[in-house]
């Protein structure tokens, strides 16, 4: 049979299209490499989820090769199976949206015109988006309603927060900062055929057992009739000169199948989408599908920034206040965007977002962070037991995360490493990394502001880590959209310039990432493309 639409991948970039087109009566099939877990399959098992990495493939079976470029131009090569370094994040139906924390911020007006507003930056390939905030905003609003976003001014009331947020807000006020409640893609009340949040104390990195988290699976795939084929690894797309003709996949028993469709959507996560196109060479596209321009895989980006922490200690609080601070389950949910744009040395800079949250509740990880004394020497025995007990029962750690632009450069891109094959015998994706020095400068500026809040709150052991280390759960680019077919892979509707029925709708399309987590934008853009597809299919 021939489907109307075949979608490769099932995450935030794929599911709005499956949802909208199948609900509009089209015949849609979704091919997902991972398993189909549902609410009843998720638990808060730290050993399985966080220690044994249940939701990522075994690296001996599927890995990446990472080529890290140093300042002096030398390149260090890491094979994932040997180094443990990988960029998998949620290999399952619904993708990494199952495991997100759901911190939802919209991109702002200037994020769509970085080059025009802030000018060229040496060593970076900054481009404006071919669409504006006005074009995307109706779809951001749709995500609020359909996926469900809670918070002040959002579709659903804000989630419950810990009493410590009032001390945070007071500190910000004294500093002249404007703190606000962080919008979350988590339902605060039962609605949309889903339960509300149970405040289980384990959200990010874990699948949601109530369905409150707005994962692509819970919010969209389980609410439509698209056919979902799980454990289906798409290894090649066939094409003629103008169109994709077939998608080939292996099932869990390594048996090969193929799918015919009128339209093909690739949304397998930024790295894997580029890898699939590059691995699908044929006589018409000898460098990979839609890659006669040589742009596929180029300008991969991550979220720039980093993290910081501070410890709030029992000694600084009354007994009741401390009890309030230690109450488990309730969120912290505070953000600052006072420096989304700032001036320094008479120059205008694009800044970013700072989210504040409690340290993750994973108790084994928290205990493990106490293994070393203040001089960096490893401890054990009674001394270590005492330190762990004292630290974990008389303090709570407040964390902040900085999100700023990771500038696209010539040195950060996806390619294919022919020397390493996965369990299917397919050459693996190589992730070539380089961080522009501006990314760290901006991150440090933002972190210095967050540090002041922690100081004001009386936190101790304040620690900041801003670097160009790429977070594997915040990846975008590789098939950027644009007006010029020579410098982009996709047009403004995310259709390949070089093929008439190929669309790429995960975060690959983003020329720049904005200074916010990506998921709300990926969802919104996919709803936008879905509307376009309904018009043309």
């Amino acid at each position: 049979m021939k489907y109307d639409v075949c979608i490769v991948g099932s995450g935030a970039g794929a599911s709005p299209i499956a949802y909208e087109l199948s609900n509009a009566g089209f015949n849609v099939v979704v091919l997902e490499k991972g398993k189909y877990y549902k609410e009843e399959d998720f638990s808060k098992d730290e050993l399985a989820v966080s220690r044994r990495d249940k939701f990522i493939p075994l690296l001996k079976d599927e890995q990446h090769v990472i080529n890290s470029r140093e300042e002096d131009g030398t390149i260090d090569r890491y094979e994932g199976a040997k180094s443990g370094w990988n960029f998998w994040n949620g290999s399952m139906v619904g993708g990494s949206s199952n495991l997100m924390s759901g911190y939802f911020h919209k991109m702002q007006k200037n994020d769509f015109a970085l080059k025009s507003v802030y000018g060229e930056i040496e060593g970076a390939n900054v481009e404006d988006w071919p669409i504006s905030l006005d074009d995307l905003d109706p779809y951001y609003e749709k995500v609020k309603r359909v996926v469900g976003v809670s918070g002040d001014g959002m579709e659903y009331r804000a989630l419950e927060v810990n009493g410590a947020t009032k001390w945070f807000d007071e500190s910000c006020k004294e500093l002249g900062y404007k703190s606000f409640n962080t919008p979350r893609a988590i339902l605060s009340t039962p609605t949309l055929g889903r339960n509300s949040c149970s405040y289980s104390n384990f959200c990010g990195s874990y699948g949601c057992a109530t369905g409150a988290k707005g994962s692509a699976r819970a919010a969209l795939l389980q609410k439509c009739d698209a056919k979902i084929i799980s454990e289906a690894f798409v290894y090649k797309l066939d094409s003629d000169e103008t169109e994709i003709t077939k998608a080939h996949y292996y099932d869990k028993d390594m048996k090969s199948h193929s799918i015919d469709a009128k339209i093909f959507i690739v949304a397998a996560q930024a790295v894997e989408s580029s890898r699939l196109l590059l691995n699908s060479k044929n006589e018409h596209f000898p460098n990979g599908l839609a890659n006669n321009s040589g742009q596929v895989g180029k300008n991969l980006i991550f979220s720039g920034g980093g993290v910081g922490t501070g410890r709030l200690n029992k000694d600084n609080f009354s007994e009741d206040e401390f009890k309030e601070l230690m109450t488990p389950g309730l969120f912290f949910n505070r953000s600052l965007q006072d420096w989304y744009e700032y001036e320094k040395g008479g120059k205008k800079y694009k800044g970013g977002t700072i989210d504040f949250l409690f340290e993750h509740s994973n108790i084994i990880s928290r205990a493990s962070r106490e293994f070393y004394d203040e001089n960096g020497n490893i401890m054990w025995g009674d001394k270590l037991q005492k330190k762990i007990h004292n630290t974990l029962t008389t303090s709570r750690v407040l964390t902040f995360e900085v999100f700023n632009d990771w500038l696209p450069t010539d040195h950060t891109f996806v390619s294919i490493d022919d020397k390493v094959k996965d369990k299917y015998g397919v050459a693996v994706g190589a992730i070539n990394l380089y961080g522009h020095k501006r990314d760290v400068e901006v991150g440090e500026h933002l972190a210095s502001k967050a540090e002041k809040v922690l100081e004001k709150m009386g936190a101790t052991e304040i620690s900041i880590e801003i670097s160009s280390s790429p977070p594997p759960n915040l990846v975008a680019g590789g098939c950027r959209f644009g007006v010029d077919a020579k410098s982009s892979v996709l047009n403004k509707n995310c259709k390949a310039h070089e093929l008439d029925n190929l669309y790429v709708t995960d975060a690959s399309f983003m020329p720049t990432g904005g200074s916010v987590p990506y998921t709300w934008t990926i969802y919104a853009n996919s709803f936008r493309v879905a509307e376009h597809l309904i018009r043309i299919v």
Partner: protein
Amino acid sequence: MFLKTRRIFLKKTAFSSTALVLPHTELFASASILDTLSLAQRDLYGDLENAPSFKEINSRAYLSLILTHSRVDEDSKKYIKNGAIWLNEEAMQLYTKPYIKLSSSERQKTLESIATYTWGENWIDTMLRFIYEAVLGDTIYGVNKNESGWSWLNHLSGLPRPKEALL
């Protein structure tokens, strides 16, 4: 350092190290690797009165599980076992006896001695991680008996709890 967030950063642990396989020597005629590892766990864990007892954490059985676990790679398993070999070599060098034949204070001195080497510190770190997985992991793995580890640290487990162990 206690930096760990939903933003997942580069992980390079001792597990990344390529483990060397040293030849077995006669000192293992009297000490199995698991016996040595289990005693090292005992010595690394501690005895504080309010902490869960060593028996409650069931760390020997847990380590056996780890050494056959489908999601712990072979290099890591080899690294843990090689550590027992290296620990015994250090014990032989210091006291001319295998680790399990040493007195409690001699064993502590041996641990202190290996902690001065990079490999020794990394190996102790690895052992401690599995010990505290046994102290604080879900009881479905046969560890953390009566949730004593969670009680010790006033920790409230997330719900739902797992229905089956991931092995």
